[in-house]
């Protein structure tokens, strides 16, 4: 049995190997690009949803923020709450129907659909990630005069990114598998190859075995890379103590505080104290 299976796979591979490889390539490109764009969409939505709204802000700002929040909410609910296979059909036929614009390439529409779908999931992850960061981080940043935008960019979002890395990885793996539904609009990803080839030569099981192995390789590789990235983001486990000599090279160019300024102080006293 096993020998037969291996022989069948070998014969399929000999004839259609490049077609399968091309399917893998298409699946990977679509999953990677759409996950990246989806993350960007998710971050934009998360950032927009968490813009603070103080009581003393003008009515215009409050109304705009409210509208943004509602729009993001609707987007998330619609694209999380419907199957991607249906979204693909809906957009593929809907855009020409309403706007008279036909997609020039199946790639464009596929990337759009998967990105929008991923973005809906990521929006919630990012919003949760931002809200889970200790309020003290924001207050610490505000207390030294950072604006909301600076606080987000330099303090909150880097921590959020690190925290939601597992979810990004999860979404990527889901995308590797779920892009298989894009055959519905004629995108020739990995699974579409199986349909085509096995339909032509009637060797369903050997082809399915190849598909299983192919998908597993793609997702295992992704898990592996993700672990590595997570480790990188976590930073070094230890630090090196620095001695005064090493700092002498960088320090001493300027004198603080300027004499006579309101910050003028006598450093000798300070040192005696310690």
């Amino acid at each position, binding site marked *: 049995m096993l020998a037969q299976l291996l022989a069948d796979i070998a014969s399929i591979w000999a004839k259609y190997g490049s077609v399968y490889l091309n399917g893998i390539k298409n699946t990977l490109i679509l999953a990677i690009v759409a996950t990246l764009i989806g993350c960007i969409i998710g971050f934009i939505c998360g950032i927009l949803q968490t813009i603070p709204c*103080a*009581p*003393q802000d003008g009515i215009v700002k409050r109304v705009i923020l409210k509208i943004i929040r509602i729009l993001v909410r609707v987007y998330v609910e619609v694209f999380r709450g419907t199957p991607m296979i249906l979204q693909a059909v809906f957009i593929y036929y809907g855009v020409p129907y309403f706007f008279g614009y036909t997609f020039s390439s199946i790639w464009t529409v596929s990337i759009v659909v998967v990105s929008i779908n991923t973005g809906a999931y990521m929006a919630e992850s990012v919003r949760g990630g931002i809200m889970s960061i*200790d309020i*003290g*981080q924001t*207050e*610490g*940043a*505000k*207390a*030294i*005069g*950072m*604006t909301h935008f*600076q606080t987000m960019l*330099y*303090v909150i979002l*880097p*921590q959020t990114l*690190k925290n939601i890395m597992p979810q990004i990885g999860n979404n990527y793996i889901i995308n590797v598998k779920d892009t298989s539904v894009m055959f519905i609009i004629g995108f020739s990803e990995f699974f579409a190859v199986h349909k085509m080839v096995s339909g032509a030569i009637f060797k369903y099981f050997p082809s399915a075995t190849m598909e299983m192995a192919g998908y597993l390789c793609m997702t295992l590789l992704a898990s592996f890379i993700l672990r590595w990235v997570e480790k990188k983001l976590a*930073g070094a486990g*230890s*630090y*090196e*103590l*620095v*001695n*005064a000599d090493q*700092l002498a090279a*960088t*320090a*001493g*160019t*300027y004198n*603080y*505080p300027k004499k006579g300024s*309101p*910050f*003028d*102080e*006598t*450093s000798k*006293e*300070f*040192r005696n*104290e*310690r």
Partner: protein
Amino acid sequence: MSENILEIKHLSKSFGTHEVLKDIDFNVKAGDVTSIIGSSGSGKSTLLRCINLLETPTSGEILFHGEDVVSGRINQSRYRAKVGMVFQSFNLFYNMSVLENCLIGQHKVLKSEKAEAMDRAIHYLDRVGMTPYINAKPHQLSGGQKQRVAIARALAMQPEVLLFDEPTSALDPEMVGEVLDAMKGMAKAGKTMLVVTHEMAFARDVSTKVVYMADGVIVEEGKPGEVFVNPQNPKTREFLSRFL
């Protein structure tokens, strides 16, 4: 008499119907080291947070060099940079090293030159004895070390006033000393400080002025010699008796 840096006038703050600060009036002059004492829940943190605009006062004025900061005509970011704050929970940025914590504000808020910012960061880290740790991340430090970095971070912004909200309350007893020492050094060096604290020895020996708060009002204020030795108000007397 030197000019007031901060003037708090008729400051009130309510959370819903709960009036936490009631008609607070007081001034901060250059070089003042003011200790604010009082039991838990009396509104000390809220007062500091109002001054730093982390809370919006319900009514009243906060004048910084005579300019109202609540009404919003003054640039809030720039004002906050001039009024530093050290928190009970440190609030160091977890995604940055000790050195980066002391640089980020200078780079992004003060727009200081790179070399200048670097020099200043190291200068103040040196003063709190944290230069050996510049490459460490906050989670790799002890509480006392974190708080000293937080003090250096605030000092690196060269604020005119520095607010401390119970800076030693979250620390193990053996680490309180190192933080208080750093603060004493700053006081000696002439920094203007406003310190909420339960460290009565610090309030008595280091500060130039003591403010006792209870239930959202300032009950008594004066020189530490007066307030500690001869408190006028029975409430103050009762509060202080718990520490003697």
